[in-house]
């Protein structure tokens, strides 16, 4: 049985391997979710991917929305009509949602509403390490935080019931090591919730769904506050909050979410079972205050273990002030736990052994050997794929900037596969500069192209600020992708037209939201559940928004792409160049490639490395021979390297 059949199998008690994201989806299915909407974002995407596969079979609605805010509103709308709904997003996705998030809670919901946010400590896939548990605290709604895949499933399932009990959305905070980790999970029963959507604008509260409706927003804020005592009472009884304490224990560990799994294994690793009191936390906000109080009254020292910022630590400190001000509370604020990056068994074990007066034995000789060997371990920068259309766009952009970009052009990026254009090259030394003038740097590979990069759609706004600031030392450029164009760029494009910004905006349209695993988006022409729909056309949208310079080119045609970009750079008006070619991984799936590989004639190759600077991972270079080569296993035969080679050493092979 494959995963997609297993996820909808109604066999309670069966034990299966589930990824955290699949477990969350399964929990929602068990609770009878009727609607799920999300925008993909690593490490959260598999939640709605899993639900999208299940939806047609179980008869509920799932969509990939244009962005997280829209997704949140779609799910909230369903919850207002009394059906169970959910939305999921990555950490940064919540930032888009905050306006609706902070206001929806004033009236709450009627149907259970689950908000899942997957944080990313260590920023494996993210622009920052933000800890979104603070949003649940800020919005005054309960936050569930699972320790493993089993709890992820069970909490997701329970969240709907809790949400309906409180008439508030419930927040489930995952992290990379929950969402992208797998564990054995015991399945529960699948409930059907075939409720008829209903609407009552004065349900239990006048103007329930209109924050401006009388009596007032302040009264609704008061209602929100009135929920908290009830929430606190409930969390005290939840099975995911658990205190294990014996007489004579002087040290306690409070561990939240995945931190509890690390802490349990660290205690075992150190042989400290039964020697430290242990408070496992499944609701970091609000905390089970009575359980925390029992621990604080009994021990002298507490180590707080949590992933992200010191939220639990701060809340425990606040409680200790009245309960037992003498208890020492250690964690991120006191330096026992790291304030950045992610934690693991070793980090917890080190902190705990120091508190217990011991040290983990380290073999200095082995450590020395490890340091020596590390020098051999070459970094492996992630790259664009072999034959990726973005390779062509970046090559053409680099060439066009050299001829027409002025002294120091600025290239503003945003988030998508093409953000690889700003990762730099691991192992290369980049030094800080203290110049008072603009400085141009040599670009060795496409991975050094993007000068700025922050968030979805951020580049097109930055570009306009650079222009209006009066930047004269070179062209200003922004790049984006098809999905990001619709997610976050439309208001900024309108702004550029209306406020008469100049600058070149390149949209790399590969038809898919590729980086997060090839979800469809408004240009793809299919929905999350595989149904055909209207495919939007970026040039039509740009034209409708008032853009006058629009060119569409094929990025595999390097000359034409370079010419279009050069023309855009010279344009007296805001210019858009769309480089359009379907993502190579999709093209391979659709068998649009012949399977032929490129071959390189060594006798002709002069070792100029122009092909290498294309940045294609299939192109190799042998330093001893001073010759380039092509890895036939990786090459897809796209042929752009043949266009780059000045001596025609690269040809299509058999």
């Amino acid at each position, binding site marked *: 049985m494959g995963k997609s059949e297993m996820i909808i199998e109604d066999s309670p008690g069966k034990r299966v391997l589930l990824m955290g994201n699949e477990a969350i989806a399964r929990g929602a299915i068990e609770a009878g979710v009727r609607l799920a909407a999300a925008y993909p974002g690593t490490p959260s995407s598999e939640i709605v991917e899993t639900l999208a596969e299940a939806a047609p079979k179980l008869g509920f609605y799932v969509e990939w929305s244009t962005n997280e805010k829209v997704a949140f509103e779609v799910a909230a709308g369903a919850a207002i009509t009394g059906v169970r709904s959910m939305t999921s997003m990555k950490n940064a996705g919540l930032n888009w949602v905050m306006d609706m998030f902070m206001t929806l809670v004033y009236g709450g919901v009627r149907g259970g509403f689950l908000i899942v946010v997957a944080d990313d400590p260590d920023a494996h896939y993210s622009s920052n390490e933000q800890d979104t548990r603070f949003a649940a605290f800020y919005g005054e709604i309960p936050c569930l935080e699972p320790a493993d895949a089993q709890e992820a499933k069970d909490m997701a399932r329970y969240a709907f019931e809790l949400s309906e009990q409180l008439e508030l959305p419930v927040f489930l905070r995952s992290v990379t090591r929950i969402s992208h980790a*797998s*564990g054995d999970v015991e399945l529960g029963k699948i409930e059907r919730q075939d409720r008829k959507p209903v609407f009552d604008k004065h349900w239990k509260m006048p103007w329930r769904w209109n924050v401006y409706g009388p009596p007032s927003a302040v009264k609704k804020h008061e209602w929100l506050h009135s929920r908290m005592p009830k929430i606190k009472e409930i969390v005290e009884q939840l099975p995911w909050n658990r205190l294990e304490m014996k007489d004579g224990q002087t040290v306690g560990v409070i561990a939240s979410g995945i931190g509890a799994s690390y802490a349990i294994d660290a205690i075992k690793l150190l042989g400290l079972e039964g020697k430290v009191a242990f408070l496992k936390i499944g609701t970091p906000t609000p905390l089970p205050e009575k359980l925390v109080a029992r621990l604080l009254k009994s021990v002298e020292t507490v180590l707080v273990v949590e992933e992200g910022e010191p939220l639990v630590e701060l809340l425990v400190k606040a409680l200790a002030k009245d309960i037992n001000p003498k208890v020492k509370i250690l964690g991120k604020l006191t330096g026992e736990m790291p304030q950045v990056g992610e934690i693991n068994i*070793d980090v917890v074990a080190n902190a705990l052994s120091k508190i217990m007066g011991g040290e983990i034995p380290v073999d200095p000789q082995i450590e020395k050997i490890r340091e020596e060997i590390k020098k051999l371990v070459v970094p*492996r*920068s992630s790259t664009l794929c072999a034959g990726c259309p973005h390779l062509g766009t970046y090559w053409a952009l680099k060439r066009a900037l050299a001829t027409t970009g002025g002294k120091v052009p600025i290239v503003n990026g945003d988030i998508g596969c093409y953000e690889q254009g700003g990762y730099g090259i691991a192992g290369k030394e980049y030094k800080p500069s203290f110049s008072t003038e603009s400085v141009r740097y040599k670009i060795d590979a496409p991975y050094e192209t993007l000068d700025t990069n922050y968030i979805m759609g951020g580049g097109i706004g930055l570009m306009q600020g650079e222009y209006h600031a009066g930047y004269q030392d070179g062209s200003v450029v922004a790049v984006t992708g098809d999905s990001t164009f619709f997610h976050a760029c439309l208001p900024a494009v309108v702004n550029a037209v209306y406020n008469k910004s100049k600058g070149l905006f390149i949209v790399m349209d590969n038809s898919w939201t590729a980086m997060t695993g090839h979800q469809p988006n408004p240009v793809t022409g299919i929905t999350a559940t595989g149904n055909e729909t209207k495919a939007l056309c970026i040039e039509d949208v740009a034209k409708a928004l008032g853009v006058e310079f629009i060119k569409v080119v094929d990025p595999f045609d390097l000359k034409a792409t370079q010419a279009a970009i050069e023309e855009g750079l010279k344009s007296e008006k805001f210019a858009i160049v769309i480089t359009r070619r379907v993502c190579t991984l999709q093209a391979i799936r659709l068998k649009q490639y012949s399977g032929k590989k490129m071959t390189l004639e060594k006798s002709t190759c002069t070792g100029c490395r122009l092909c290498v600077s294309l940045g294609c991972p299939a192109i190799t270079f042998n330093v001893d021979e001073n010759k380039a080569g092509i890895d036939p296993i990786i090459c897809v035969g796209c042929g752009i390297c043949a266009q780059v080679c000045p001596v025609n050493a690269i040809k299509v092979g058999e």
Partner: protein
Amino acid sequence: MKGLNLIIAGVGGQGSILASHMVAMAAIRDGLRARVGETFGAAMRGGAVASHVRIGEDVNAPLVPRGGAEIVLAMEPLEGLRNVVDFMAKGGLLLTNTHEWLPVNVNIGRAKYPSREQIRDAVAKLGGKIIEIDGTSLAQQAGNVRTLNVVMLGALAATGKLPFSTETLRKVIMENVPRKTVDMNLKAFELGLKSI
């Protein structure tokens, strides 16, 4: 106590994550608990990938502690070495494919790929053992280079260090590879089994 800490390393696109899932599924089917911590790069392909697999009667966290992996299974030699350095236990094993996938850093002349001798030497210095197989060629022999992960699983089973039966692993592989490729993958598994 029956248990195993295993790291499966490779380059994005080589199938190490699916391989790690299949190991964990086989463990669960034979009555053990399992955790898999997946670390993959920002893009789908080309980056360093490592999957931590923890199997036992009582495992909780999804990441192997430093120096805690009894086996590092590598789809690519450099990725094997990358994980051996921090994670291989004393007396541990590096089971690696010999086919190199050069990082872009090496191609543009910013770094040098370690030689096979250097890798062997490093494993020996850390008190470990190394088994090298040309998994890529075996995968091609099975019918497609994409069966590399299953070839390597075959070799892993052949070490006799897995705390569950080879038959269970074989069944799990059959159920989890695309239906059209079952025969090819079974061949790949057999080639791996016989390779050491």
